[in-house]
């Protein structure tokens, strides 16, 4: 079992949203190697759900198990080790603008390296080939020694992805990982996330704004609305009427990659392969819809 959420609920305890309910009785579990997409209108609780899986917030109700343990019963040393095995790709890459790309990527291993190795890497990177390899997968190898404030939004987002790929986590979480990329790069990036999950047999959970990417790439699609689980289906069963219900409160147009009207009637769904990941990555070309 890669993770298990049992009737999770969350009521914000501080900040602007104090007292507001973000999640209600959500139960999801995934075996190792599964690949899940989370879709739903903005404010549905997608990010909150991912952050609970990342052990960065603690649910107020229900039981969490991540990589086989309850993170909130661990000692701080064990929790730190667990966290170093969970990778989280943020929508806005949390990288200081003055940092060089290679340093930003190396930061993915801080939880695994001894402190002296991390400290020396500030002066001279202890590993150059590794970060270069991860950046090359995302078509960014030539920016290895650039400063991050020289990059565009989409490039910076890919640096954030490269950092988490370099971390080699056992649970790969992604919050809107391709929101700042054009369709071709978005497909390249999502494809690399799938390749990583399949080649190492790790679990991938991604929240996505673009419904078409979710349906095309992921063998399991989860619909979330107003903090509640609406459906948990293979993409072939996600019909247009199901999607219309999910996004009922929005403008009536289903959100897709390039904000074109989207119709959930195309072939090329992700195939539901067995957990463990022997199935092929559906390498569909970027669809122009």
């Amino acid at each position, binding site marked *: 079992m890669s993770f298990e959420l049992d009737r999770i609920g969350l009521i914000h305890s501080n900040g602007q949203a104090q007292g507001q309910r973000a999640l209600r009785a959500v139960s999801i579990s995934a075996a190792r190697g599964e690949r899940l997409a989370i879709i739903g209108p903005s404010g549905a609780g997608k990010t909150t759900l991912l952050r609970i899986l990342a052990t*960065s917030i*603690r649910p107020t109700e229900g039981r969490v198990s991540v990589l086989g343990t309850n993170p909130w019963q661990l000692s*701080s040393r064990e929790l*730190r080790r667990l*966290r*170093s095995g969970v990778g989280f790709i943020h929508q806005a890459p949390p990288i*200081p603008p003055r940092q060089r790309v290679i340093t930003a990527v190396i930061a993915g291993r801080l939880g695994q390296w001894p402190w002296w190795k*991390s400290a020396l890497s*500030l002066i001279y990177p202890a590993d150059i080939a590794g970060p270069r390899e991860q950046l090359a997968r995302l078509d960014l190898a030539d920016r290895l020694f650039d400063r991050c404030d020289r990059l565009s939004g989409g490039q910076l987002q890919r640096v954030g992805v490269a950092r988490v790929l370099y971390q080699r986590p056992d649970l790969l979480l992604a919050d809107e990982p391709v929101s700042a990329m054009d369709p071709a790069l978005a497909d390249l990036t999502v494809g690399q996330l799938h390749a990583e999950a399949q080649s190492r047999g790790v679990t991938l959970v991604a929240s996505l704004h673009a419904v078409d990417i979710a349906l095309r790439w992921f063998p399991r699609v989860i619909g979330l609305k107003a903090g509640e689980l609406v459906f948990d289906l293979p993409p072939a069963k996600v019909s247009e009427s199901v999607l219309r219900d999910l996004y009922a409160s929005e403008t009536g147009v289903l959100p897709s990659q390039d904000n074109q009207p989207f119709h959930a009637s195309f072939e090329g769904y992700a195939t539901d392969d067995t957990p463990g990941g022997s199935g092929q990555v559906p390498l569909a070309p970027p669809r122009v819809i």
Partner: protein
Amino acid sequence: MLLALLVLWPLMQIAEFRPSDLFDARNLEVMGGFLGQFFPPNMSGDFLAYALKATIETLAMATAGIALAMLLALPLGLVLTHSLSVSRIGPGSGRGAGEAVRAAARATLLILRGIPELVWALLLVRAFGLGPAAGVLAIALTYGGMLGKVYSEILESGDTRPARVLLESGSGRLMAFFYGLLPGAGQELASYTIYRWECAVRASVIMGFVGAGGLGQLMDQSMKMLNGGEVSTILIIFLLLVLLADALSVFLRKLLA
């Protein structure tokens, strides 16, 4: 305006502030004589050699004091910084202990900077005797308290997400600081430290008056002998030192940019 005068007048009386004294004939004569000696400044080789030795002593006192202050301030400042707290994420276990350590660090910094460096110097001169050692420690204690507080405020005021995200992926606190906060805050931390060094130069001069050596002690002697030429030479050296601090700050900011 009238109200202000009505309120201020009794206060000035209490403070024995009598502007007429300034224009009293005898006082004017003494002051005038003293100020008249300011020009020309005393540039004799003998005195300049003294002044140079005192300047080096002052600079050494300020620099050693600030270095020790940083040793004190960095760990305390990092402990105080909320965005580097692991137990606040979640919140997880050990949050109570974390808050207790932070409260202790805050109290330590408060005591250190709450006592003025001059008072520390007077206390430490009793322990170490006359000389720069007392001044160095006095600067280290007071300025350690100030630096620690301001360091944590600078770290807290920038973008703290990078550090938090690193902590969430298992990084240690110190590395979260180096990789997540320092790139954004380094310039400001450095220029604040240089500014404090400049303040320490001035403070070490003042502490010279209570016997901690350096330019202050030299100035104290010149003042007591009403030797205006020597005093003006020392004042010129002060100005040069402040200019030096300014140039150093600009240089460091460029280096870090």
